[in-house]
């Protein structure tokens, strides 16, 4: 370790927010999933863009790696310091800078938690909502951009990274750049039609650090309803999702199946979120979705509505971590055509059974059923090395499976990144390499991730 780097960090962020102590290094060496710990040399928690910029310049000068971390919720080890260096915890940069109500966008610092923005909009702009991922509320807006996250509202509006009106980024060499209308005016109202320079979305922090995001907001209706359909034949799921997506009235459209609790085993649950400002509007949507598009399924007895609720709580995926009473789960995320659901489900059941893990699979419709995020979750007991090993093997088996079935891996860890790059078109790969080298000549930005050989 270089004590000069630590002293410089203290000068930049203050003594309270820089550490080279074993306890902080230990804490930031751990991902929540199965990844092996990777120890940083320092931890810094900047408050401002200026402080962050100074850290980036320091890292270039000292040739030490920097790894930005938001909520640390990727579970895939994306924010682990694979080559040591400085862990940058972004969560003190969490100001909600502007909410433009009529323009329906919010400009936030990248470390803003999903929970904070949710609460702020609920209190101050109750007719507006942003797309919330299923991750816990500590997940950050910037982190979600760096991994192409998605959440509710994905069916009408796509990935979270499709929902931006502008970005501010610190390049690996320290320059601050803005993209979208904010690059030429005070307004953060559009990303287009300027030349596309979005080299930062989905790169997992390997090409720069996102510092501000202009996030599109969407109408938040007064009444929200979650309906749950069930079928016992996975082959029906793509057709049902297609039918529902035809009317485009759902705010979120998911399909999931899980072994626990036992009564849900082998059943396929289709979650449909709808909303309305009045009961009349809701009823209108129900009629189009269920009477017009799905009545044949109900009449044939192949499916049914098992629950409706207007008392919507956000999903608590954390509970998955307790399925083996062991504080752990990790999943392989992927993006596939919706039609792949039956095969993906069956593979998930097989792999889970092989590793004695209760199976859990979930698919979320992206756009008008243009694609589907599909995830296989594997719970494990953190205190049982065998259980961790099994989960890790199941994850790798699943990663291996994805390209063969025609899909792409979502937010892959290094193992998955290698698989993706192995299957990637050579010219595209070469462009990625050139981009990375051009932006990050000293190789300091989250090294080890998306590195083309």
């Amino acid at each position, binding site marked *: 370790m270089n004590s000069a780097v630590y002293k410089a960090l203290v000068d930049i962020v203050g003594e*309270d*927010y820089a*550490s080279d*102590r*074993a*306890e*902080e290094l*230990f*804490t*930031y060496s*751990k991902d*929540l999933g199965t990844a092996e710990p990777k120890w940083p040399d320092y*931890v810094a*928690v900047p408050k401002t863009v200026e402080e962050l910029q100074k850290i980036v310049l320091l890292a270039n000068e000292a040739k030490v790696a920097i790894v930005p971390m938001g*909520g*640390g*919720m990727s579970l895939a080890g994306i924010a682990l310091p694979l080559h040591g260096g400085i862990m940058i*915890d972004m*969560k*003190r940069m*969490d100001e909600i800078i502007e909410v433009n109500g009529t323009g329906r966008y919010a400009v936030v610092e990248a470390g803003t*938690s999903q*929970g*904070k923005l*949710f*609460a*702020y909009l*609920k*209190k101050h702009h109750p007719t507006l909502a942003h797309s919330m991922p299923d991750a*816990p*509320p*500590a997940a950050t807006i910037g982190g979600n951009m760096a991994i192409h996250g998605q959440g509710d509202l994905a069916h009408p509006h796509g990935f979270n990274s499709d929902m931006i009106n502008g970005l501010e980024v610190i390049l690996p060499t320290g320059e601050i750049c803005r993209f979208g209308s904010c690059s030429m005016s005070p307004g953060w109202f559009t990303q287009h039609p300027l030349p596309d320079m979005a080299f930062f979305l989905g790169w997992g922090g390997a090409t720069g650090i996102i510092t501000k995001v202009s996030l599109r907001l969407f109408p938040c209706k007064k009444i929200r309803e979650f309906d749950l359909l069930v079928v016992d034949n996975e082959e029906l799921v793509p057709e049902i999702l297609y039918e529902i997506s035809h009317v485009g009235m759902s705010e979120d459209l998911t399909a999931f199946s899980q072994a626990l609790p036992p009564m849900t085993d082998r059943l396929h649950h289709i979650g449909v979120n709808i909303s309305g400002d009045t009961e009349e509007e809701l009823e209108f949507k129900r009629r189009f979705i269920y009477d017009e598009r799905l009545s044949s399924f109900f009449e044939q007895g192949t499916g049914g509505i098992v629950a409706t609720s207007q008392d919507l709580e956000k999903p*608590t995926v*954390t*509970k998955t*971590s*307790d399925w083996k*009473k*062991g*504080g*752990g*789960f990790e999943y392989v995320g992927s993006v596939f055509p919706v039609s792949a659901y039956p095969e993906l489900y069956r593979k998930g059941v097989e792999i889970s059974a092989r590793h004695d893990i209760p199976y859990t699979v979930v698919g979320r419709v992206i756009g008008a059923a243009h694609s589907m995020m599909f995830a296989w979750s594997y719970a494990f*007991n*953190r*205190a049982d090395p065998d259980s961790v090993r099994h989960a890790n093997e199941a994850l790798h088996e699943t990663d291996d499976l994805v390209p063969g079935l025609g899909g792409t891996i979502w937010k892959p860890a290094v193992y998955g990144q290698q698989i993706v790059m192995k299957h990637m078109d050579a010219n595209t790969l070469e462009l990625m390499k050139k981009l990375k080298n051009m932006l990050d000549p000293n190789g300091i930005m989250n090294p080890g991730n998306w590195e083309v050989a």
Partner: protein
Amino acid sequence: MTAKIEYKYDDMIHRCFRCGYCKFPNDWSTITNCPTYARFRLESYSSGGRLWLIRAWVNGEIEWSENLAKIVYSCTACKNCEEQCPISFSDDLVNMVVAARSAMVETGLLPSPVKSFLKNVHLHGNPYGLAAKKRDQWMEGTKIEPYQNQEYLYYVGDEGSYDTRAQSAAKSLGELLLKAGVSFGVLGNLETSDGNEVETLGEEGLLEELIEKNIKQFKDLGVKKIITLSPHSYNVFKNSYPKFRGEFEVFHYTQILPQLMQAGKLEGPADLNMKVTYHDPCFLGRWNKEYNAPRDLLKGIKGVELTEMGQNKKSALCCGGGSGNFYTDFLGGSEDSPARIRVREAHETGAQVLAVACPNCLTMLEDAVKVEGLEDKIAVKDISEILNGTE
């Protein structure tokens, strides 16, 4: 690798996923509702980070250090994490921290301020290291009687007995009880520490000693009912003493005074025309689910307009003084100290008075008001002081 430490929650602590719900209030409006995370903003100071570090220490993955001990002992035991954690073991989150402290006590590995705190309680019966014979000085000039078979024992506690600011609250409450004609007495110099902080600091031996000593004294004197000034005393008498066969009817004073007001035995001052916001003490609120009595009391005072801070009741931000931190001061020294955040929240409501029902919160928040330069904007008062018209 160090040796594995014997640890009570060895079969449970690994279940923390570190998802971070524990940092939030109910409405998710801020990620800084855990007082230690608010102060330091390092994951190591979050509830989850702390549990992972404890597990690493007891498993021999990391060695004990002053920094580790500071992380473990900075937790104020406020239970915000328990309110928010979605996992079924959430009721034991603070217990897991306390058990780690017990393991540190067993191995003699404690931060210096904690050692001083415990040594002072052991030698002097209070954490300040002040003479036991000075314990009754707070009641000088009052007509409060020693306990001699009256209906209630008024247990004042360490802060109310020794801390200059808290003494005012102790006095106000005593005067109110006198005015209302309540049959009560105090222990004066015979009173000793209740053990609440000793318990959360993990000193089981000293806790047992204090509890047994207090129970014997209470029983010898014929005490049946206890009114406490401090929610900390209330908590330990109510929840821990029965485990040692010390079963008494215990009331925090905010649970007694509303009845006296309703019975016409107690009147507040003349119309106050005062906007007040109330800070829930952790050991009354989250620990004992008493959110209404203090509010009812305030609402019963003529001219008091009660307004709420954004984070209140189950989601109230801790003042940062719990579990000995009012003495050890691991969370002080920053504009992000929880007490300073809390008084800024109180000021934002437009209230002229920040009402408290805990001598610990009283001293923490009043100091914070001074450091924030808000003395002319907002005053910190114990509810007993508001009711007694204490300036």
